[in-house]
């Protein structure tokens, strides 16, 4: 879709929401919207797209109550603002939107979470991404390092960039709007997404990318949408396997789940953001046992998070059940960098090659 087309579609779909309210008001109906319920209880596996999406449960917000009327009013202000922003070809960050609402009197947001949530509602209602509304997150995108060539549309024109040859030690930084990227060619056997910066740097230093023709992507903790979108696009376009390498604790499994299956908050765009074929490399609870890795005891919150994952439909596989139960039994967790206890080369020479072989990737 060209930028002009995208703008037009986004504008029309936003206006369509307001139009529905307008028609409701003209016929004497109380304006309302219905949205899927955004909770763990209402996500379902989509067999076709192989991702988790929102189910059929919907909640209706009708302006018949003061709270919902205010919600609709805020939404109308946001739509009005976004329409203007698209027409004027300007953009703003989610944080800026929150501050802009200061001038909207009744319709002003009380916290940024509220405006973020409302933007997600608009994404659901329009079936478009917030980037189409010229909204971007303020967070930096993650970085890529490896045998991959892409073209970025910058303000100063198109740039072709090779993510090994044309970048510095830190790699290529992913822009917030990934739709401006074209992936041109690659020489990769697989993509490895890494949770921590320390491990990402270790792999670069050890020359893991060159030795195995691997594209390294730094997730920077819970990955931003743009990072997940890049993984999704590389996987779709070149059909190279994606593996995820994180710490061995419940929070890191959630990072993997959001890469592979989509996040509950953004389940409406799971098919754009999730990479269902992604594999989990580790650290697995069984690795802690098998390699006798340095470890910490689980905290109460860790245990609660693990138990909650046992009831999360995204972790409802034999593999995850076995691993999580093992971890609860051992009552231990380890970081990626715990492999350093076996020497700095252990992770690139021993652990990763053996795990990749297990998964049939090399």
């Amino acid at each position, binding site marked *: 879709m060209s930028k002009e087309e995208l703008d037009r579609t986004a504008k029309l779909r936003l206006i369509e929401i307001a139009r529905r309210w307008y028609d409701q008001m*003209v016929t*004497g*109906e*109380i304006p309302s919207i219905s949205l899927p319920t955004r909770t763990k209880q209402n996500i379902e596996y989509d067999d076709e797209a192989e991702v988790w999406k929102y189910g059929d449960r919907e909640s209706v917000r009708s*302006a018949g109550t*003061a709270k919902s009327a205010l919600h609709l009013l805020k939404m109308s202000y946001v739509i009005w603002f976004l329409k203007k922003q698209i027409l004027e070809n300007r953009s703003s960050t989610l944080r800026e939107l929150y501050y802009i609402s200061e001038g909207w009197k009744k319709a002003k947001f009380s916290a940024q979470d509220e405006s973020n949530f409302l933007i997600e509602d608009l994404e659901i209602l329009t079936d478009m991404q917030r980037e189409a509304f010229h909204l971007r997150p303020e967070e930096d995108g993650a970085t890529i390092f490896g045998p991959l060539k892409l073209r970025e549309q910058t303000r100063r024109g198109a740039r072709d960039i090779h993510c090994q040859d044309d970048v510095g030690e830190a790699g290529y930084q992913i822009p917030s709007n990934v739709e401006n990227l074209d992936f041109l060619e690659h020489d990769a056997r697989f993509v490895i997404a890494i949770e921590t910066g320390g491990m990402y740097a270790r792999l670069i230093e050890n020359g893991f990318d060159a030795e195995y023709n691997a594209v390294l992507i730094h997730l920077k903790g819970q990955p931003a949408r743009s990072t997940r979108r890049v993984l999704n696009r590389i996987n779709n376009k070149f059909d190279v396997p994606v593996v995820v390498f994180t710490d061995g604790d419940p929070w890191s499994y959630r990072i993997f789940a959001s890469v592979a299956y989509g996040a509950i908050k953004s389940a409406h765009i799971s098919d754009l953001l999730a990479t269902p074929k992604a594999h989990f490399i580790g650290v697995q609870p069984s690795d802690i046992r098998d390699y006798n890795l340095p470890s910490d005891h689980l905290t109460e919150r860790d245990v609660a998070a693990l138990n909650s994952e046992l009831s999360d439909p995204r972790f409802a596989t034999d593999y995850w059940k076995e691993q999580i139960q093992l971890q609860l039994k051992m009552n231990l967790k380890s970081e990626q960098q715990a492999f350093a206890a076996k020497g700095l080369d252990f992770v690139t020479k021993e652990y990763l090659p053996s795990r990749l072989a297990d998964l049939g990737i090399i």
Partner: protein
Amino acid sequence: MALADELARKQRSISVAEFFEKNKHLLGFDSPTRGIITTIKEAVDNALDACEEAMVLPDIYIAIKKISSDVYRIIVEDNGPGIVPDQIPFVFGKLLYGSRFHQIKQSRGQQGIGISAAVLYAQLTTGLPSTIISRTGPESRAYRFDIQINIESNEPDVLVREETEWDRTHGTRVQIEFRSTLAAKKRLLDYLKYTSVVNPHARIRVELDDESFTFERVSDEVIECPQPIQPHPHGIEIGHLKRMLAACDAPLEDFLIQGFCRVGKKTAGEMCTLSGLSPDIPARSLSSDEQKRLIDAMQNVKVPAPPTLQCLSPIGEDLITQGLEKEFQMDFVRARTRSSSVFSGHPFVVEAALGYGGKLPAEGNAQILRFANRVPLIYQQGACAITGSISQISWKNYGISQSGLPTGPVLILVHVASTNVPFTSESKDAIASIPEIEREIVLALQDLGRDLKTYLSRRDKNRIQEDRARAVCAIIPELAEKVAEIVDMPLPDISPIEGRIMKKVVAKKMIRDGKVSIEVKNYTSHPETISIYNTSQDGAGDATTPPDFVTELDNEYTKVWKVPLEPGSVWRVDYRGTGGGTLEIRGIDEKKIVVVDVDV
């Protein structure tokens, strides 16, 4: 000389007047402040009773004038039947002289002490006689008396008796002067206000030094004067029975049947059998042992409760409500008249009312208005069975806070009407605690409490709903404005939505494809009957619901439908036509209707 002889010389009979001189508190004259209230109370009681007997609407005038630093002149005038001149000295100048003492019916005064006690009090504090003017009708002349009481003999001393001019055609005027203070002015006005609440048929005018107040009547209905009844066998005491027997010439059976209520041949027979006395012996021949057996038998034979309708005159729920609404501004007021009951053979009725909110003070104890036979009780609230019954109810159940007595913006009225109100003392300040009466008070108030609770929860619910609706209606116009701006269309008419949210009746007229539709929706929670007036050039001959009538003027047809609308229901009519014209809804409060012409 023996001591006994000495003592015997000192022993002598005491006159009633003398007794009361020493025991003023028993009659409510314990302090100068109180004396003024008691005097007015006695005079007003007499005036109201007299008017009631004469079946006239009471028109009472009260004046209180300061004569010197501590002497006040009190005047009470009524438009009652008046008193024949020969009786006047006894009514005002002799204690324990009255017309009602021997009757069994509800009345304010009873013993004939009150007003003469006031005359006595005046005499004791200022030494001045009291002046009475009375006239019995337009044909007779008015008489004026100056009276004192002979304290030793309890007989009237008439100082002046003369014919005089008086502008009232009938009535009585009492003028008494005594030492007092007006420290209890508020209490006095309260007393008159409360009197006016339970006597909504009376007009009371007051001139208090330079101020004047009027308690207007709200009901023009003369209250029916209660009729005396015979004593009930269960309520009789031995002394009374002895007097009745002594005054009777008939045989015992006839004495029982004629002298008592609810006693027929069968009951009289049972009493005779039980006491072992022949029904044929003359009633007055009974020995005191036989009298004792008779009274025991009378208590033990089952006798139906005494009749209550004729001898009692409850105020009635409507008049209590009117009376209260006249003197107090409240959001809620409800009254209850219980059916009559009996204690120890005395019939009684309990009436109660509960008021809430409005201008009642929001803090502190509830305001309690106690009445006995339409007379306000203003002293000794704590000692009264009414107060006791009020505190024994768990008011929290009815949404009222409580610390002993209920607290908050609450008004409680209790009226006990009886042929014999059981007071704790002769000053008639408090009702004695009689289980039967307390039970009735509690039941009446609990019943009212339930009403209040329903009212309060409905009010709270309404308030929340209203707040919400108001909030919504403040937001929707802004939403409409923003939405119209986004879609770049004219501002939509949101009155039907507001009508819906504010729960009104919404009427809508529109034309689509040559068909005129009128739709009326009732979003209120009440059924409404409305008339729909639609004036246009269309005859509406094919209306899906034919109009109730149609009039034509210059080619304009006015079609009228009369429509009953249940809450939540929709009424609709369609007819072929060109539309235009007007739509008007009548028969409903303007605030509750929204009319929308979609095509204008």
